[in-house]
């Protein structure tokens, strides 16, 4: 059985349970908001709110470098801290935070395999106490946007068929039957997908318990759809968090050399005037 290309970026729930008091380990729960964290979280974990702390709240973007440095510093994270990320929705927003931390060059960041769901299913301890952290001074690297796709590049890739476009949303979103996941607000004017994109929902990469499938299973999943390591790959979803999850799988578990997350995703493409849309 093949191993993951970078197994060091994944830790088990048992590992986290054993290391949650290590001084050089910072555990962070990352969710779209902090409701779940407030109800109970891994002892010692701090919370990041995706909406207000990882995204620029004025323009649509990731937070700029200086704000990222402040967030790390306030979180007690130094450049050499081992950061363990987990969250609900099977680590969607944790994967976004991982991607953003790699943009700003943090060396040792890892995902807890299975996320919040697996921790709770296993009956591991939770607390509502918020830990006190000692602020640090953090120096981020200049952003590495080689792992981020912007609209012009996606449009070129679509026209030239020069990259595998992977739409990781549900089949109903892909076909345009719905404009947003059931129960969530609609954020686009048109349904459908980017012409030529393959629909490989993010969840196909996971087992029932939320952990990632084996390297062999993942390889078979993506290669069956023509997503192979010899061609650049661009993942997208609705707002870029589910596609961060797939970006993580392709880049770190399968070791594809050129993978980007198009965080503009369908909320950008599905609102543009005049771009082609494929349905179903």
């Amino acid at each position, binding site marked *: 059985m093949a191993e993951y290309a970078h197994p060091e970026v994944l830790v088990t729930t048992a590992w986290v349970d054993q290391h949650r*008091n290590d001084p050089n380990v910072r555990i962070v729960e990352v969710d779209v908001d902090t*409701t*779940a964290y407030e*109800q*109970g979280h891994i*002892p*010692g974990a701090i919370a990041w709110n995706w909406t207000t702390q990882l995204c620029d709240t004025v323009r649509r973007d990731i937070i700029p470098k200086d704000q990222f440095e402040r967030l790390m510093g306030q979180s007690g994270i130094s450049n050499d801290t081992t950061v363990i990320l987990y969250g*609900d*929705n*099977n680590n*969607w927003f944790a994967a976004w935070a991982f991607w953003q931390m790699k943009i700003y060059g943090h060396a040792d960041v890892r995902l807890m395999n299975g996320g919040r769901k697996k921790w*709770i*299913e296993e*009956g*591991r*301890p*939770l*607390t509502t*106490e918020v*830990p*006190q952290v000692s602020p640090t001074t953090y120096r981020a690297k200049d952003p590495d946007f080689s792992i981020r796709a912007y609209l012009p590049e996606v449009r070129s890739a679509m026209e030239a068929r020069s990259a595998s476009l992977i739409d990781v*949303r*549900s*089949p*109903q*979103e892909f*076909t*345009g*039957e*719905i*404009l*947003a*996941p*059931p*129960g*969530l607000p*609609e954020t686009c004017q048109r*349904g459908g997908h980017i012409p030529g994109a393959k629909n490989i*929902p*993010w*969840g196909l990469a996971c087992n029932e318990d939320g952990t990632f499938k084996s390297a062999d299973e993942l390889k078979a999943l993506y290669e069956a759809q023509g997503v192979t390591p010899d061609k650049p790959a661009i993942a997208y979803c609705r707002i870029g968090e*589910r596609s961060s999850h797939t970006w993580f799988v392709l880049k770190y578990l399968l070791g594809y050399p050129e993978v980007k997350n198009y965080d503009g995703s369908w909320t950008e493409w599905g609102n543009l005037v005049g771009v082609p849309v494929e*349905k*179903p």
Partner: protein
Amino acid sequence: MAEAATLRPEQYVRRREQLAGWEVNVVSYKLGDKFLCEVDNVSPGAIIARGQGATREEAESQALAQARERLARTRRFPT
């Protein structure tokens, strides 16, 4: 650093059902003296509502009411 006071989730139950025409997972468990519930939309798997209460029924009722209201707003388009 002082060890935080901890509780272990107990009586964990997960079930799948139809709600307002959509498939949902309903998860509930006991944490200390209260029950927590969360409802996700299965495909793609986003949590769309949470509830809590003194009993499982109370927590589920709160979460399901919120989920039903949100799901009812989801429009389907012909493809």
